[in-house]
């Protein structure tokens, strides 16, 4: 047995070594292509002041009576992600039905729907935010629209997978007793998919709250705007408190959303 084993496994072993070598070559090629001349030589010093700032956050920024403080910006971030998720959870339903294979007899219909969703999904939200800023001006509304449109791509894909997985029994039963298309949708399809839809919308909400924190970097409202100002002015203690605020907000939202999702399903 000892003699037969190597000859059997030699092929895959050689193949694995070749794949490994190819990966290393790829990595070296990628590494050699990057030019790191931009690294600042006083990096260590900067690190020191960052550490100083992060260990002494600017607590005064948490609440300021006259406005533009941490809490208000975090609230705006939260509001942007709630509205963005709500809009996309609404808008993606027709897309989801378009892309589900069991909702249309012609395969090209659902295939085209899936392709459109892929294109929406790979279109980055930051670029969408910039385009909406040009349209409606900088501010939270542009962020809401960017999240609302971008989230359609992922939500509609997940929704359409849910629709494709529904139990055909109720639908056939309703069709057999003469229900109209709308009645089939209302009483056979929707009751089966809605808990899953809600769960996915909450999941997307968790992603959106993270995205909403960076939308401000390009001027689309939320906590990102004061963060980029603080970074540009090297105000590390303020950067520290903002990052702390973001981390706490995201953790709280994750906990609430996870709890809700467990309750729904």
């Amino acid at each position, binding site marked *: 047995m000892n003699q037969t084993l190597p000859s059997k496994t030699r092929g895959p072993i050689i193949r694995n070594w070749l794949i490994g070598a190819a990966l290393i070559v790829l990595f070296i090629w990628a590494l050699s292509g990057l030019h790191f001349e931009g690294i600042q030589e006083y990096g260590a010093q900067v690190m020191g002041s960052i550490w100083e700032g992060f260990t002494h956050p600017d607590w005064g920024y948490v609440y300021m009576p006259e406005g533009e403080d941490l809490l208000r910006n975090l609230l705006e971030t939260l509001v942007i992600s709630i509205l963005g998720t709500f809009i996309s959870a609404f808008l993606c339903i027709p897309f989801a039905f378009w892309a589900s294979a069991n909702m249309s007899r012609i395969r090209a219909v659902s295939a085209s729907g899936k392709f459109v969703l892929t294109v929406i999904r790979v279109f980055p939200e930051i670029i969408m935010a910039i385009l909406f800023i040009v349209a*409606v001006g900088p501010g939270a509304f542009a962020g809401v629209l960017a999240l609302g449109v971008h989230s359609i791509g992922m939500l509609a894909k997940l929704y359409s997978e849910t629709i494709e997985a529904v139990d055909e029994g109720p639908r056939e039963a309703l069709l057999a007793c003469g229900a109209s298309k709308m009645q089939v949708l209302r009483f056979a399809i929707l009751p089966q998919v809605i808990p899953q839809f809600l769960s996915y919308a909450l999941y997307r909400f968790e992603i959106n709250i993270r995205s909403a924190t*960076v939308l401000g970097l390009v001027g689309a409202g939320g906590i990102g705007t004061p963060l980029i100002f603080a970074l540009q002015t090297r105000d590390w203690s303020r950067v520290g408190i903002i990052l702390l605020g973001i981390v706490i907000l995201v953790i709280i939202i994750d906990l*609430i959303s996870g709890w809700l999702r467990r309750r729904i399903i």
Partner: protein
Amino acid sequence: MTPAPTPETAEVGAPPPPPSKKPAPTLDSKGPQRYKTLGTWLLFILLLVACFIRIDANILDLFSQGARDNMSRILGEMLRPDWSYASHIWKPMIETVQIAIVGTVIGSVLAVPVALLSATNVIPKKIVTIPVRMVLNLVRTVPDLLFAAIFVAVFGIGAFAGMLALVFFSFGLVAKLTYEAIEAIDPGPLEAMTAVGANKIQLIVFGVIPQALPYFFSYVLYTFEVNVRAAAVLGFVGAGGIGLHLDQQLNSLRYDRASTIILLTLVIVLLIDYASTYLRRKLL
């Protein structure tokens, strides 16, 4: 009016948020259940109205004359991409992919020991696994662009900051997915090896790694897909790649050129997605 409003949606049991106007009574809906449903609905609508008031958004803004003019101008220019510009952007495009490759590889390699440390079937001590997981969760709360913005402030503008951002981001993602895969492996071989007296290192090398490796590679590929998309926008905060050029073209209102960049990025991302999905299907 603080983050408090969200728990109110806790009551969203069965009813859908937007589509139908009113939850239609089903056969088994009883009185109290209906009041609860209605209450949930009212709270949800109140929450949304409060949100709209808070951001001071006017839906009509989107359809105002100015917005329509702007939109149609941008779209008009974007529909006529400037293909002659394509030859200028191959280099930054390759750099984008390179940032993604290096970031993914380094982040994933760093993730391996951490994933092993946080898997309870490898290290059955809660004192080790829980703190490691907490650190992982902390890392994952920070979005990649935020990492990039911070590293740009620390190390200066350039690809290095972007690569570091992706290292951190991939590290968090791969480590979490991998430790979950490790916890789901078949415990049989591990028990057999423990019974014949294997030490921890032997257990990991001969018991855990052969089972978890395909999953690990699959997650690395998935992370690579995510990272290519992320690398394409890292330039907006100055962290190298194609995003820098896109930002410049958008700022100088050259929407035809911006559209060329966006289209080419979409093509690259789709190609990498398809290749990676194909490889992942072969792996698992």
